[in-house]
């Protein structure tokens, strides 16, 4: 069974040998979180949240080898997103967009360029 937990080194130490999805609230923490998790556990993915639109999020080459779900509030300017697409394809990043009509076009554009995309149903009424 996979566990989802925040990037908390003391907690990770107590989950020795488990498969972990580790959560971070700042994309700059992706690499340290992956390192801390892998030191004692098996890393499934890093679930990262960015406050900035995708176009303004600093996506780094050193994420290579780390499976990342990158949740962003929006795509931002499409021209900047298009420039990011080759890097996103090289990395193991899945872009997570909110399930809002304004973001559907960006989701389609990214998916059509071969970038993995998910739409998060956050804020949707839970029946």
């Amino acid at each position, binding site marked *: 069974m996979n566990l989802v937990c925040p990037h908390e080194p003391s907690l990770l130490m107590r989950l020795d040998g488990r498969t972990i999805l580790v959560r971070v609230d700042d994309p700059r923490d992706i690499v340290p979180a992956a390192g801390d998790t892998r030191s004692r556990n098996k890393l499934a993915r890093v679930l990262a949240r960015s406050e900035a639109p995708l176009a303004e999020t600093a996506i780094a080459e050193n994420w290579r080898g780390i499976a990342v779900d990158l949740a962003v509030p929006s795509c931002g300017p*499409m*021209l900047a997103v*298009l420039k990011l*697409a080759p890097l996103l394809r090289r990395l193991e990043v899945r872009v997570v967009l909110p399930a809002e009509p304004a973001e*559907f*076009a960006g989701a*389609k*554009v990214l998916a*059509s*360029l071969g970038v993995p995309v998910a739409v998060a149903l956050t804020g949707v009424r839970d029946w």
Partner: protein
Amino acid sequence: MRRLKPAMANILLTNRCVRSCPYCFAGRQMAEAEADTHLSWENAVYLADFLEKTGERRLSLLGGEPSLHPEFVAITAYFAARGFNVTVFTSGIMSSAKLGELAASVALLPRERVQFVCNINNPEQTPESAGETERLHAFLKAMGPWTQAGFNIYRTDYDIGFLFDLVERYWMRRRLRLGIAHPIPGAGNLSIAVDDIGKVIARLEVWRDRFESARLKPSFDCGFALCKIGDEQLGWLTRLAGRMEFKCSPAVDITPDMQVYCCFPLAGLARKSVFDFDSYRQLVNHYRDLQHRLRAEIPGIFPECGDCPHHAEGTCSAGGACQIAGRLVRENPGRLSDIERTFSEPRLPA
């Protein structure tokens, strides 16, 4: 049976334009369309998938003036990122901010991935819009090496002498697209009568030395007729530019709201939606069928076209389908409506 290659799709990004050329053959389509309609991102993705499915790797972006689309640069870059070779038909008239954004984006792409056809009017023969010349020169200064000139002929005393200077000065591509302005029934646009096509072609001789010294290779857009060019003139043109085309095939214009028609001059005829077709090949074949029906009524623009071996062998299309439609309207009013009606009726599958 020979398999025909689908014609390049023309995608209209917007119906708005910055110029009002007296010969404009898109004017009627633009006047009847909603001015503020722009191609949406969803439809851009749909069209990329639609063309890709048929194996088509080329497309053209046009308008109106395509750079008036708020996301013109991003959409151009998107189609290029999808692997299409994109040709943008533009007047070159755009804001300096948009031009800077365009130049920065295109510079990152392989040279053949995006190119421009800049349709340029002779400023001494055609009224200009405010600031047109300055903006055109700014565009050519930035994008010249990616750009070939286009010139639309709508008067028999046309003058293309000024183009050679632009080509040299801005390191433009050594190709010149020459188009004949076609009459749109009821539109009142200035155009070249079919009887004047010979004069139009013969006039190219005026600039023969300049064509050759600049190594500028002319190419004919639709509507030119092989019989109206002498062997000697055809010889030097072919030696300079390679095989000259005298063809008319569906250009297939796709509007910002995803309507489709055979070409601008036939925009009022048998218009459909892209969503009516399963593939781009099916769409092109649909309009090829329309052209065949028109040509079954009148083989060509001249009475002798029906017996012409060049037409029979496919070397010459015997003029444009729009010119034939125009002749049909004049000679047999109502027949065009009959064709359109029967063309729209469902038929048994092949």
